[in-house]
Structure formats: C-alpha cells, structure tokens
C-alpha cells in the first residue's frame, strides 16, 4: 500500500522528520504514538501534501506511484485520506454539497460519471448511521458550529463516504469523551477490510482499546525509535514517555 523510505522533512528550515521508514500493507492497522513534538502531525501533513513542509530527503511510494510528486488533491483522489486533528470550518458551504463535490472530483479523476443524486443520498444516509451523525449536521455548513466531538465524527463520516485506500487518523481521539470515542472506533472497525489500511496517530493508548492495531510504532524526535505489536502501546501507557525519552535522547 505505502512504503516510506528515509523520509526527512522540515518546516521553515527546521528539520522535524529525520528519516522515517515504514511499510504498510493492505488490511493492516498501524498506530503511531509519541510524545508532543515528536513529529506525528508533521508526518500526516507531509503524506497528505501540505505545502508548508519541505521534504528534504527520502521517498514515498503509494500503490506503486511516487506520492511526493503528486499534488495534494491527486493524493486524495488516489485514495489517501486524512482525518484532521483540527477540522476547519467552511461557512456557507453545506456538508452535503462539500461531500458531493469531493466525490465527483474523485470520480472525475478516475474517469467515472458524476454520482446520481439518488445513489448519493442513500450513500449518505447509510454512512450517517455508521457514525451516528445527526442528519441535521449533514445539511449544516462544513463543521460550522459543530462541537469538538461532532467535528471528529464528521471526519469519520467523510471517510466512510469517500472509502479511501489509506486513511490517516490524526489524533482523532483528542477531545473525545468515551462514548464518542467508541462511535469513532466502531466506524473505523466497520470500514476495515483486506483492501484498505489505517494509520492511527495518537498520544494515548486509550483509542487502541477500541481500534486494535496490528503494529505500533513509537515516534520520537522525528524517527521511529521502536516498533512492536499492541503490547508495546500498553507498555508505553504503563511507563509513560519519559522512559523512551531517556532511552533515546542520546540517539538523535
């Protein structure tokens, strides 16, 4: 699905990612954990194609294509989805209109016809249920006046509608209460299959109780310093990040 080799990236001349190596196959769920400032969000931004970041070294192959060569919108059209940590508001643009535009842009890219209105509506209805999103929210402006939890659920809802190949969830659990967390996790679990993959970026182990990862990676100072299975996350939860910091401070 995606292969990241020796990825270095900097923002305003400051190096944040210092050689990331990661291989994710279809059907897998990877968790990336790490203390604040370790480069978790930078990694998701770089993969999604945000322009503020400069890739200085390394390569990323996404389904056989050079990801870093692609414009942000083409990465999305190729099936890469980012659930934002801080979803933005777009006043006056209804959620539904936004999604329809997105779907049709992606279909257009793939040489498909625009989605018939009827199919679109039933798709929306079906996916709405999945994340228990209030029907009213789909007609409101994108994220405008949504609570923190509603915004995150809206991200998962969009993901469900767009059915990406690779979804990156950037701290989707932050600011969620336990009920909302379960809803988000249930959504992800329902969408999971052998053709897609998920990257769950999180600070806490909590979300991983509900979305069980196949692999856990610990990011520190812009590098993956440790990889393992879900036990690693529990270990981390028990010991805290200080141990990691102590252990790897000298490495960088």
């Amino acid at each position, binding site marked *: 699905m995606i292969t990241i080799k020796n990825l270095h990236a900097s923002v305003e001349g400051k190096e944040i990612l210092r050689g990331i190596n990661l291989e994710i196959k279809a059907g897998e769920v990877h968790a990336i954990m790490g203390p604040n400032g370790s480069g978790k969000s930078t990694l998701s931004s770089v993969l999604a194609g*945000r322009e503020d970041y400069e890739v200085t070294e390394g390569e990323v192959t996404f389904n056989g294509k050079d990801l870093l060569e692609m414009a942000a*919108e083409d990465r999305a*059209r190729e099936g890469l989805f980012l659930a934002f940590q801080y979803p*933005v508001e*777009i006043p*006056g643009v209804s959620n539904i209109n936004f999604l329809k535009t*997105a779907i049709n*842009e992606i279909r257009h890219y793939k040489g498909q016809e625009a989605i018939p209105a009827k199919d679109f509506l039933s798709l929306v209805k079906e996916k709405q249920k999945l994340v228990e999103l209030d029907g009213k929210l789909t007609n409101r402006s994108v994220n405008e006046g949504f609570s923190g939890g509603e915004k995150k659920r809206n991200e998962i809802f*969009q993901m469900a509608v767009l059915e990406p190949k690779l979804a990156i969830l950037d701290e989707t659990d932050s600011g969620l209460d336990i009920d909302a967390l379960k809803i988000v996790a249930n959504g992800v679990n329902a969408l999971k299959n052998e053709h897609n993959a998920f990257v769950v970026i999180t600070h806490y182990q909590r979300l991983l109780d509900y979305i069980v990862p196949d692999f856990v990676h610990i990011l520190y100072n812009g590098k993956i310093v440790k990889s393992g299975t879900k036990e690693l996350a529990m270990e981390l939860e028990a010991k805290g990040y200080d141990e990691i910091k102590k252990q790897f401070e000298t490495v960088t």
Partner: protein
Amino acid sequence: MGNEVLAEHINKDYEWGFITDIDSDTFAKGLNEEVVRALSKKKNEPEWMLEFRLKAYRHWLTMKEPDNWAHLPYPKIDFQNISYYSAPKKKAELKSLDEVDPELLKTFEKLGISLEEQKRLSGVQSNIAVDAVFDSVSVKTTFRETLAEKGIIFCSFSEAVLEFPELIKKYMGMVVPPTDNYYAALNSAVFSDGSFCYIPKGVRCPMELSTYFRINAIGTGQFERTLIVAEEGSYVSYLEGCTAPQRDENQLHAAIVEIIAHKDAEVKYSTVQNWYPGDKEGKGGIYNFVTKRGICLEDNAKISWTQVETGSAITWKYPSVILKGNNSVGEFYSVALTNNKQEADTGTKMIHIGKNTRSTIISKGISAGFSNNSYRGLVQIRKGATNSRNFSQCDSLLMGDKCGAHTFPYIEIKDKSAIVEHEATTSKIGEDQLFYCKQRGIDMEKAIALIVNGYCKEVLNKLPMEFAVEAQKLLAVSLEGSVG
C-alpha cells in the same frame, strides 16, 4: 456584443421604417446646449422633456466633478471627448465562432451559455442567430401582451416619454433629482434611453421582469435611465444585467435608476453586473458611475436591492432607500468582487424618516489580485423616525496580499429610540480551508469557488433561483487565477 447584433437588426428595420438617416447618426464629440437640444429633437421629445434636460445641463455646468472622495483613483474624464448620441455601433462581422477570441468562448462555456447564445453574444452572423433575435422580439411581444392584460406598463423610456407623459412628468426625478450629483445631472441632460415600468394598484407582476429587460436594454448606451413605479399593494421583481461578459466601447456609464413604492407595495431589484473590467492592467475597462435610489413613499412599502458586481474597471454605486412611509422596509444585499486592478466603491444609504422603519444591509466584498474594494454606507435616522431599526453586516474577504478591503460606515442618528447595529469582519481565504478541500480531492479552483460561494450565500439566496446559479458560476470564473 449581443447588443450590437440586435441593435443592428433594429437599425435595419428602421432603415425601411419611419425614422430616416439613422445610420449616419453619430454626433460629433463634445457637449453643449446645442447637443442637448439636438439629442432631444432626434428622439422627437416633447418640449417639457427638453426643458428637463436643459435645466439639468445648466445645473451640471455649475457643478464640479467630484474629487477623489471615494476610494477610487482614476484619470480625469474628458466630457468633451465623448459623443452624446450615436446610433448603436456596428461591430466587425464574424463568420463563425472560430473567429471569436478563444478566451471569451472559454468563459461562455464555463458560464453554461448555450452555443446559440454564445454566437449572439460574440457577434457572429448566422441565420440561426438572426432567428434567435427575431424570436426574442416575438417573445418580447408575447410578454408585453401578458403584462398589458394586468395593466402593467413596461417599455423603453423613450416610448414612455411619448406615450405616458403624465406618469413620467410626475415621477421622473422624484427620487434622484437632476441636481443630485454630478453624474446624475449629466445623465438627466443627455440620457439616451432606458426602461419604464409601472405596476398598477393591487397587481402582482406575474413574472420576473428579466428576459424582457435583457432585450429591452440592448443598445440603450451609456446614459441609461430606469424608472419603476409600484402603486398601492403591488409587487414586482425586476432583474437587470447579464452574466455574460459585456464588452462595450463606451468607457463611461452613468445611469440612473429610480424606484417609487406606494403604500403596501414591494419592489425587488436585482442586478448582476459583469461589464468589461479591462485587461489584467485594468486598461480599457468600463467606469460605472450609477445613481440608484428608491423611495418607500407611503406606509408599509418595501424596497430590496440585491446586487452581484463582478465587472467594470471602476464601480461607484450606492443603491439607496428613503424610508418615508411608516413601517417601511429597505434592504440591501450586495456581493462586490474585484480582481486584477479593478476598483469598487459601493454600498448603500438607508434614510429613515417614517416611524418604525427597518433596514438591513448585508455587504460581502471579495478582493483579489491588486484590486481595491470598499464598502461605503450611510445609515441615517432622522428626528421623528421613532423605533427605527437598522442592521448592517459588512464582510470582506481577501485573496492574496496585494489587494485591499475597506469599510466606511457612516451612522447618523437623530432619534433616541433607534436601534442601529453594525458588524464588520475581514478574513482571508485560509490556507487551512484550501488544504482541507484539496485533501478531499477538490482542486484549488473549485475550492475557491466553493469557499467564495459559501461566503456569499446570504446574498445569493436573495437572487431569483436561475440568476443565483448564473451568479455562482460568474463568481468562480471571475476569480480564476487569483490565487496560487
């Protein structure tokens, strides 16, 4: 463009018709009393109309061209270098769409204008286009009959002067007197033509007066005059303009629009203005200096102005409402978009005189490129206008860092019971918003269109449905290449 084509055919009719030698009709450049007299004579106007023009002209001579009080730098206009009467100009004949500027065709396509309409607008001669024109003429006649059944008068201003002199005498200049301002005085002296619309008591105009107007407006030239009178309890929705790019050889446009709403009457006036804004450097664009004003003459009258302004090199325009009748309502909904080197200074005046009068102002400015976009508005609550209310919201959206947005609200309150609210925001299209859209597969151009249309939604919602869709596309086209 289309103007010339139809005008040409109208001309041809005239050749064989009542008016002779119209083809040779272009006055020498310059303005003096003789020119005003000759113009009036040309139009077979009655004596009182000539007197009106002369009085306006003499007053105009005593006035000074306004200094740059508006936020608009532009070179001085040489009023002696303009011809004040000319037969509609003939455009170079094109044989097929292949000869039309491909950029223009692209724009047409994006606006969703049909091929036939495209031909008409770009001045291509074809039998079909001619048929279309004649079709329009017959459509016009059909409309006119439907309207006449209801007692609605809708005709060119010139016709109205001859056919309904009493109405014109009574209402012309009532809201915008010839002495009002420099350009209004000039218009009053030399206005070429325009439209007259009269809705009798208790009549609800059964159609949007749009298609008709588009045809009707053809060839009326640079000094238009529109007069709308709504009698007691009547209603009319009036649409002006066209979303297709209108090129014109006249650089200065100084129009007047007057609206009179009697007791319980309601007039909705919608404009989509997309005149040629000039090239990227702003060269050759149109100067649009318009005086638009309505009066709610009696109780419970309502006047709404809705405008989407994307064209012209310079726009100077303040559609206003005088709220004289008690409980009368004035509304102003505006989207003004400037790109490249365009300049706009636009807004409204709400003059509260009657009791319990209410006004709403929603202004959305969008600036891109090197343009400047100013909102200038006056809310005046006169003494005795008890319990009057105004709500104003002026938002500015900036794209890039070379453009400007300015807000100049003037508030004069002479009555203590008034409630006046003013809100203003300035925002930039956020990188975050654009990235969010792109991450969902939406490219930059579509993303901008989406965000801008969302931003203007409150105003676009006030436009008649069909017009709103066209306006949305127009906003997107006007912003092309403005970011990135």
